[in-house]
């Protein structure tokens, strides 16, 4: 598919610097936007059906393959759902180790997205590689952070991506004392690096042409702290719901132009991800992450999705600051680390339940029904699907505002100049990218029919 040169059409044939395949079509007439389609032609893989007839352990092998970039979150959400269904109690130490692997994924995914994939737009480059001529130190620092996130996952999950060590009931093996100390040391060294990159992101120019009020959702952490796991959902309308109500919260539907399903709440788009978490939980931050949050936060954060990139940068700093504390707690339990994290087998083989975690790009729900040790039904609701309606809304507003600028005082419409068209295309891509979409994930959000 080629870029469109038609006067009344903007077409971005293949979204770059995102995971998966998407394209944008905007059509307008007489200075008004008529159609906005964020098309998702990604090939369906039917994961919800692949897990049927599988054991809980096999489910945990399969579901991370939905998406590499949030593979730890998928594994964690599946583990939570299956453990809730089979009544397996997570030990304190297992929880700490799972939190550590989750921080690893947040650091890796956010550094990749905010600093390597999104930042080039703001600085006028086609890629982070192309930035190296002028911004080599920043690119190398971003890569250092990203590498550290991978290092945590390598140690805790046994691989950067799709590490099989975390499973239902615990871990196959626990990290050694030396490995934990090394993670702690590196995290401490990288805190100033993350702070510097937050500053870089803070000082960027954020276009405003897509601004509109947003509704946010995220999981409510079980304690008063900032965090990425919970059994309740917070909404910026002030509501709070148990995750068991995930179906009513997401209202999935099928649209013809996409193999990914769509979600809305009370007939309105909503937003999940780092920006939602910062808006709903930012006051809970401590330390340098809190200072950065206060310095960066403004009311634009409830209207402008581009601040999602800055929110990711602050969350990266948050994870780096928390990691040494987490490791100190783990080291206190060092003697029982192996036994307390070892795999606990369930007493029952039948049950059903939902489990949720915050993936880097938003709330991720997994639901399973099991009968005699095998899965009989499953439902997975993925963050990108929840964000697609909001993305289209912001695309529409940006397109409308820029098109409106081509209407003269007498109502005559001047066609978009090539530069005007280029600017609009860039803004539309930036909007989609700011949600850090994981498109291959989004295609697997399905409610089983009948």
């Amino acid at each position, binding site marked *: 598919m080629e870029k469109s040169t038609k006067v009344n059409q903007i077409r971005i044939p293949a979204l770059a610097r995102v*995971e998966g395949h998407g394209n944008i079509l905007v059509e307008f007439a007489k200075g008004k936007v008529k159609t906005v389609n964020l098309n998702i032609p990604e090939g369906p893989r039917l994961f919800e059906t692949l897990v049927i007839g599988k054991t809980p352990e096999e489910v945990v092998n399969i579901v991370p393959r939905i998406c590499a970039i949030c593979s730890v979150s998928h594994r964690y959400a599946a583990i939570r759902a299956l453990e809730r269904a089979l009544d397996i109690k997570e030990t304190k130490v297992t929880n700490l180790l799972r939190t550590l692997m989750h921080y690893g994924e947040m650091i890796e995914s956010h550094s990749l997205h905010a600093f390597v994939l999104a930042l080039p737009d703001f600085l006028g480059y086609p890629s982070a590689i192309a930035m190296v001529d002028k911004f080599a130190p920043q690119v190398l620092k971003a890569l250092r952070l990203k590498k550290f996130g991978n290092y945590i996952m390598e140690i805790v999950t046994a691989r950067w991506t799709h590490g099989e060590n975390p499973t239902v009931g615990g871990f196959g093996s626990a990290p050694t004392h030396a490995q934990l100390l090394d993670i702690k040391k590196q995290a401490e060294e990288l805190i100033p690096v993350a702070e510097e990159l937050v500053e870089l992101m803070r000082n960027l120019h954020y276009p405003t042409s897509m601004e509109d009020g947003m509704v946010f959702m995220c999981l409510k952490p079980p304690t008063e702290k900032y965090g990425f796991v919970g059994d309740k959902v917070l909404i910026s309308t002030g509501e709070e719901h148990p995750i068991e109500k995930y179906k009513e919260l997401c209202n999935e539907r099928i649209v013809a132009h996409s193999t990914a399903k769509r979600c809305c709440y009370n007939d309105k788009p909503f937003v999940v991800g780092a920006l939602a978490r910062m808006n709903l939980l930012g006051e809970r931050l401590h330390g340098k992450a809190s200072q950065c949050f206060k310095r960066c936060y403004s009311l634009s954060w409830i209207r402008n999705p581009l601040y999602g990139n800055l929110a990711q940068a602050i969350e990266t700093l948050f994870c780096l600051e928390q990691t040494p504390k987490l490791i100190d707690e783990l080291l206190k339990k060092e003697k029982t680390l192996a036994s307390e994290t070892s795999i606990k087998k369930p007493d029952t083989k039948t049950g059903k339940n939902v489990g949720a975690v915050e993936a880097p790009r938003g709330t991720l729900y997994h639901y399973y029904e099991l009968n005699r040790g095998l899965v009989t039904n499953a439902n997975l609701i993925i963050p990108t699907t929840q964000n697609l309606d909001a993305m289209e809304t912001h695309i529409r507003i940006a397109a409308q505002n820029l098109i409106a600028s081509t209407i003269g005082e007498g109502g005559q419409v001047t066609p978009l100049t090539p530069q005007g068209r280029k600017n609009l295309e860039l803004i539309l891509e930036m909007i989609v990218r700011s949600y850090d979409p994981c498109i291959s994930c989004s295609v697997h959000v399905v409610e089983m029919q009948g």
Partner: protein
Amino acid sequence: MPNTNKPKVGFYNFSGCAGCLLTILNCEDTLLDIFNGGDVVSFLMAKSDNTEKELDIAFLDGSITTNEQEEFLIDIRARTKKIVCLGVCSSYGGVQAMEYEKDAKRSDSHTWQKRFKKVYGTKPFEVVKAFESRPVDAFVKVDYFLPGCPIDAEQFLYNYARLLRGLPVDAPKTPVCLECKWRENECLLLKNIMCLGPVTASGCKARCPSVNLPCVGCFGPADEGNLTSEFNLLKEKKYTFTEIERKLRLFGGVKFVKNFKSLWKKAQK
């Protein structure tokens, strides 16, 4: 930086988790060398300035599940000297092919058409025509395979350097057991745990057995693996045929199913 003397390289993603391309982006220390060693003309996941033209090497991640992908694949083949499949999706169909050619007559029949309807209903799609996942070599000639779920970074870098110098891909033919022995792990099969190490391609450094967990077969079938022997061993250990088949299908894709068919017929007798 465009350099006409460097081999022209493209990285493409079809249906999959993008984990193999992510593994390349995860080579933080060598990322700039990857982009400098070859002239990377297309890598949609990493950059915006992509051009589609004649290529010396194309790396393909993901399996083929739509007509659009099939057309694009044929286009890539027509303008590319060497095609390299990265990972078990492009090589064998991936996890999304685990139900490939399951006997439709069986009562637990799980055919693709039935599963597709279950997920999306019967409303026709405007966006693409979809079909059951198949590997790249079901459509075009493939020069090399570098399996894994995802690929191993060291194996990729070693073979990337070889390919840039015009040398063929050198992927291990031996099973995981070899690497497992090197790490001096205790054999999990001896503890009656169903481990696919003996029939799975190595290259992962026996990660799972090294954390006391059985190999799930994520690198796909090993050329030198003895499937019959593994099958008989697992039967001896009282695993049912269904359990063994289910495990082998997880990552073995179309290739394992083909290997498996004759075995399955014998077992049914």
